[in-house]
């Protein structure tokens, strides 16, 4: 390290430079783990969107009985709906990815927001499971439910909470 004379003003580059970790606390494993789980949740969403796009026509024709082959108007309409679903889903997943980054950086409001959505998702699954005899197995929604619960566990832990609420410089 070279020792130079310090400028009389603070460099604005400091403002845009990555913040150093606070000396008070290292990033706990729970925070890192929570952010990674949110990323996994996004990947699960990507897989779901791809499978939806692939199976879209098949589902509409065979399960719902929409005559796509004979009805050109319905065909165009279904493609438009699919495009909208994919775009909206993509935006939601992109936002979730940003939240994962914010959590990793130690943002408290991002942590709370993700926990609220995880809670809503878990509660919805619970109503399905206990109310309407929907089975939750590995082949249906166990993976996404497990990810939601793990995200909630990791982000609500005391370490993750303390880190998100630490004094920011």
């Amino acid at each position, binding site marked *: 390290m070279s020792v130079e004379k310090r400028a009389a003003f603070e460099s604005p580059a400091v403002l845009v430079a990555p913040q150093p970790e606070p000396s008070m606390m290292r990033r706990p494993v729970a925070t890192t783990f929570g952010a990674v789980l949110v990323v996994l949740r996004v990947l699960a969403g990507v897989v779901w969107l791809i499978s939806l796009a692939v199976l879209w026509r098949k589902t509409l024709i065979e399960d719902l009985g929409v005559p796509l082959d004979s009805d050109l108007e319905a065909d165009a309409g279904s493609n438009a709906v699919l495009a909208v679903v994919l775009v909206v889903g993509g935006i939601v997943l992109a936002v979730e990815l940003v939240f994962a980054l914010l959590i990793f950086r130690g943002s*408290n409001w991002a942590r709370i927001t993700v926990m609220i959505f995880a809670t809503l998702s878990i509660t919805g699954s619970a109503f399905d499971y206990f109310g309407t005899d929907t089975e939750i*197995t590995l082949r249906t929604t166990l993976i996404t*439910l497990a990810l*939601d619960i793990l995200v909630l566990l990791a982000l609500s832990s*005391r370490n993750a909470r303390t880190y998100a609420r630490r004094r920011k410089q």
Partner: protein
Amino acid sequence: MGEVGAEASGDPIGGAPVDEAPTPVERRRRISFNALLDGFFFVYAGIAAVWLAWLVFTESFAFGWFGILFFVAFWLVLAYLVLPRLHRILTTIYVPDYFIGRARTSDGLLGDPVNLAFDGDEASLHAAMARAGWTRADDVTGASSWRIISSTITRRSYDEAPVSPLFLFGRQQDFAYQQEVAGNPAKRHHVRFWHTPDGWLLPGGRRVDWLAAGTFDRAVGFSLFTLQITHKIDADIDIERDHIVDTVIAANPEARVDLLADFSTGYHSRNGGGDTISTDGDLPVVDVGAVQAAPAAGETEVAR
């Protein structure tokens, strides 16, 4: 130092002066709402984890022989997610948060008994322990965790291996010292140190600078309460206590011992892992204040 404070004790972290600007009323309301929300998520996640464990358990019957993998997953979820969280919630309610002569585990369970006290500043204490042949334990970090795994696989020794966090005064231990037992990673001597708060007195009115909990790990096994894999400690904790005092006294002629007899009179109980412990209840107070801090590093090198 993240594991500070318990939920029911009014959240000492949030209660500490965080910002400088807002008025007390504003700050209080904002923090209590945050704490309320966090408390809700904490408990809700615990309940959801129980459900997850149940789902994984039932799933383990659906996959034939692969079900064994699910059963392992069930144990992992139960031992490392569900039970710690439930213990944390329940012990917050019923385990007192003042000094009762016991450290607490990160789950809030009663941990190793406090069986040693020290007087003297931190540098003297480090010097005394180093001279007595003790090795300071690393903090738990990603790097040290990785080194535990790699040294286990390659069967190399790792004498600065970190010790698990135990809590006293709502704080993790300030540092820990240990001695390896030749060629056996399952066994080790170790002692954790906490600096006492300013002006804090032991029950009975004695002022000490440091409290310490020394136990001997005799094997690796299942914890009774959390089903986790952990070290089992030797039941007679007095042997380890006397070992620590003897080594410190032998290596540091300046050190003095003052015995508080029957401090925790002969109680026999369990530690956080469910191991039996028994003790005669004496609390030795070792005064290391006269130990010179500076030449310690050089001397230990020579001693080896």
